[in-house]
């Protein structure tokens, strides 16, 4: 006999809408789901909790028909449910909002929704329906807005409304709040609560434990592909949840260091046009970071984060004296000249920017460590040193891989991020710039990375953390600044700020700026025009 899916199920009386029994899915070398069973009722927000690689994504992809299980079965509303494709799943009333949106920026909201439909109604009717749904569920959205002009939160609303138009019974949400401001999160939660009262089931994947405690009625916890527990998250503390998830005691970051030292790096009045299409121009940036402090730079992605990192890493050059390292002008220096001077960086995109996906970890260690770790002599690479560096990172940062010879893209997001951050930290930087250091990481990995950043600062390095995760910035940064549409706000001591104030600085400012006319014009993007 199989294990009873919900051991505490007796307390939950009504019949389950979705039942999953003994689900198994194996990939070469790893069992992503192993005998996974759970059940979820109507009118429930059901959290799926787990570390990276715990098997949450595999599980919901199976439910959504993107993957077929090797073994096990599912029931939807008492009927056998075995979707062969997302199409089957949608027919059966299962919809999913992905972490990454699939929207066309140059089309408007209604057109994007129509593209996802099999038999779209006439545009005018569709626009009316979108307006109806958006009003019913408290998701403000104008069907005629061009998607390119929408914020991340508004884009997510397009995806949600697209799902809701199918009138699903089950709505799957994969990390929905990772790109949202606190205000947008509040709106989303209201919508989800309204859906719950209508008797819909919401499968909710998130790493943010506080969120799950605030929103979810029930949680199924996964570890290494197996269900390790289920509980009512409102009855547990975030710490208890995290420990069930991780299976070990959480290392909470230690207290931040006091008394920042001398200014290590400063930017004065830098303006830089982005090299990328759809990039954001940096406008008149002033920035100072001191030894021993962490400068947190908040902001929703796409507001100049990538550009700021490129300017600091040396991938984008600028006027020599626009960036000063101490008194030394380094604006015109390339990445390796800056590395030699102790200015290191870890970009956001782990695969394809911070690492070359098809190269192994030894080669990827040489990617950024060649200069500072003296891996090259007379033009020849000392692969022994590169391997030693890679193995040192793997060991010190608990990167779980078969060995340093594994290619980067075979690592899970969390493990690769630990490698990327560790690769820079173990080069003992004087200034370290990181962009989204814990994006998409589980609690344990994120805590480990934050701790290592704090340690680095306490050893006297200047650290700049660019992040969308405000809780993270509140936790680790000494001073806080916000990047919005390429402008950097004046930094303030983090201790003085509340989360709400920061939220207004970042996201609220978007809506406020519409009235000023220039920044977010409500019109179609013309060809060749850059949409922010």
């Amino acid at each position, binding site marked *: 006999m199989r294990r009873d899916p919900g051991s505490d199920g007796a307390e939950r009386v009504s019949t389950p809408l979705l039942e999953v029994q003994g689900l198994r899915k194996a990939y070469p070398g790893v069992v992503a789901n192993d005998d996974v069973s759970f059940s979820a009722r109507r009118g429930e927000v059901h959290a799926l909790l787990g570390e990276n690689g715990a098997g949450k994504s595999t599980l919901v992809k199976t439910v959504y028909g993107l993957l077929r299980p090797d073994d096990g079965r599912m029931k939807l509303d008492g009927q056998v449910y075995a979707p062969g494709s997302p199409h089957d799943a949608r027919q059966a009333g299962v919809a999913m909002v992905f972490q990454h949106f699939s929207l066309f920026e140059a089309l408007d909201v209604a057109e994007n929704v129509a593209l996802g439909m099999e038999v779209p109604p006439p545009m005018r009717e569709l626009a009316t329906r979108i307006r109806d749904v958006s009003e019913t569920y408290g998701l403000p959205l104008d069907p005629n807005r061009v998607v390119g002009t929408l914020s991340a939160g508004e884009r997510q609303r397009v995806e949600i409304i697209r799902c809701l138009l199918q009138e699903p019974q089950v709505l799957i949400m994969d990390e929905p709040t990772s790109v949202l401001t606190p205000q947008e999160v509040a709106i989303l939660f209201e919508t989800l609560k309204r859906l719950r009262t209508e008797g819909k089931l919401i499968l909710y994947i998130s790493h943010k434990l506080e969120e799950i405690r605030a929103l979810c009625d029930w949680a199924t916890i996964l570890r290494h592909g197996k269900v390790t527990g289920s509980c009512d998250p409102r009855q547990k503390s975030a710490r208890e949840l995290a420990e069930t998830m991780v299976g070990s005691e959480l290392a909470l970051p230690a207290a931040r260091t006091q008394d920042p030292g001398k200014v290590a790096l400063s930017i004065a009045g830098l303006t830089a046009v982005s090299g990328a299409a759809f990039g954001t121009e940096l406008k008149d940036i002033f920035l100072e970071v001191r030894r021993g402090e962490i400068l947190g730079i908040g902001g929703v992605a796409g507001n100049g984060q990538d550009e700021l990192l490129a300017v600091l890493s040396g*991938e984008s050059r600028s006027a020599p004296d626009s960036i000063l390292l101490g008194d030394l002008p380094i604006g015109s220096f390339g990445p390796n000249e800056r590395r030699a001077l102790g200015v290191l960086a870890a970009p956001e995109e782990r695969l394809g*920017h911070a690492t*070359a996906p098809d190269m192994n970890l030894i*080669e990827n260690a040489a*990617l950024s460590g060649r200069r500072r770790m003296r891996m090259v002599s007379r033009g020849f690479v000392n692969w022994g040193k590169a391997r030693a560096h890679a193995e040192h990172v793997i060991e010190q940062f608990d990167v779980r891989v078969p060995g340093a010879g*594994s290619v980067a893209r*075979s690592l899970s997001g969390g493990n690769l991020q630990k490698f990327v951050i560790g690769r820079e930290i173990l080069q003992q930087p004087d200034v370290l710039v990181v962009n989204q250091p814990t994006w998409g990481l589980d609690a344990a990995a994120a805590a480990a990375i934050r701790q290592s950043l704090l340690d680095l600062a306490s050893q006297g390095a200047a650290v700049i953390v660019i992040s969308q995760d405000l809780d993270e910035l509140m936790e680790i940064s000494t001073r806080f600044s916000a990047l919005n549409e390429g402008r950097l706000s004046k930094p303030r001591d983090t201790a003085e700020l509340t989360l709400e104030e920061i939220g207004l600085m970042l996201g609220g400012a978007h809506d406020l700026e519409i009235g000023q006319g220039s920044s977010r014009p409500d019109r179609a993007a013309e060809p060749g025009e850059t949409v922010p």
Partner: protein
Amino acid sequence: MIRLERRPAPSRAWAWATPLLAVLATMVAGGLLFAFLGKDPLLVIRTIFWDPILGEFAFYYRGQLLVKAGPLILIAIGLSLGFRAGVWNIGAEGQYIMGAICGAAVGLAFYPLDARWLIFPMMVLAGGLGGCLWAMIPGILRTRFNTNEILVSLLLVYVAEQILAWMALGPLRSPDGAGFPGSRNLRHYDAAANHELIAGSGMHWGVVAAFIAVILGHVLLSRHILGFNIRLAGASPRAARFAGVNPGFLVLTCLGVSGALAGFAGFFEVAGPAGQINIDFNVGYGFTAIIVAFLGRLHPVGILLAGFLMALTYIGGEAAQATLGVPAAAIQAFQGMLLFFLLALDVTTNYRVRIDVRARA
């Protein structure tokens, strides 16, 4: 339903198995082609792949093997560096021609001075320089004006062919040639000739250069920071910029090196097996080397083996033309098939083919 599923890591086994499978698939498809032409497919395949090495007249063909493989390998090694970095030099044929013209011109300028220690090395350098400069044209145009190096390098082949014809009919035409096109025969000018080093083996300085290129190419790619940068830029351009690689420098280096190697190949050919600058000097080594580079997995050792295989199809193809009356175009189609099948089968390196037996609901 047949699906392709991305592998978590590229398969090493498939990376090396696909060239072999591609050769087999080419034999099958080529056999069909020859059968439609009314030839006995088995006999043609045997004539191409077996007779040149182990047949009755193998003693003649074996020497030809090195003669043909030498330039193919030398050019392909250069091309592979660029291909690895995402720099697509398709015009090696033109660089080969320009190398031959420059090398030969230097030698002919000294005629009939007898100072091999001076003249031959100068010719080698001139050959390499000619190919290198010709390849720098697409390089500079790309780095300066962002033009497409594929188109520019390819079109420069036809320009080079026109220059070749002009040289053969004009400036380099032999004064003792009774008005016929073509330069003096360098093989008859000892100070400039690229003779066989061991009689009957086909081994000449160009083949030596090819072997050296294989070794240096291997060392460059596996040990040198430039080789690492080349691989990095090809694998992930954005990561390469993060690593501090200057893309423009890499474009010029790759085009320069591949052009120089093609130029060397052209010079060794004109001073050795071909003997003279003439209208029909180039026979497509520069293009075939592209196939060789990919067939050899852009890996120096692979290219060495692939070079011999392609040389075999050249020699065997000529034998099949001569003895069985197979049209020359059929042989070229046969070589083209090899690249076609290789690229098609390459999918298996990064993807797993899944066949679903389950009936669609």
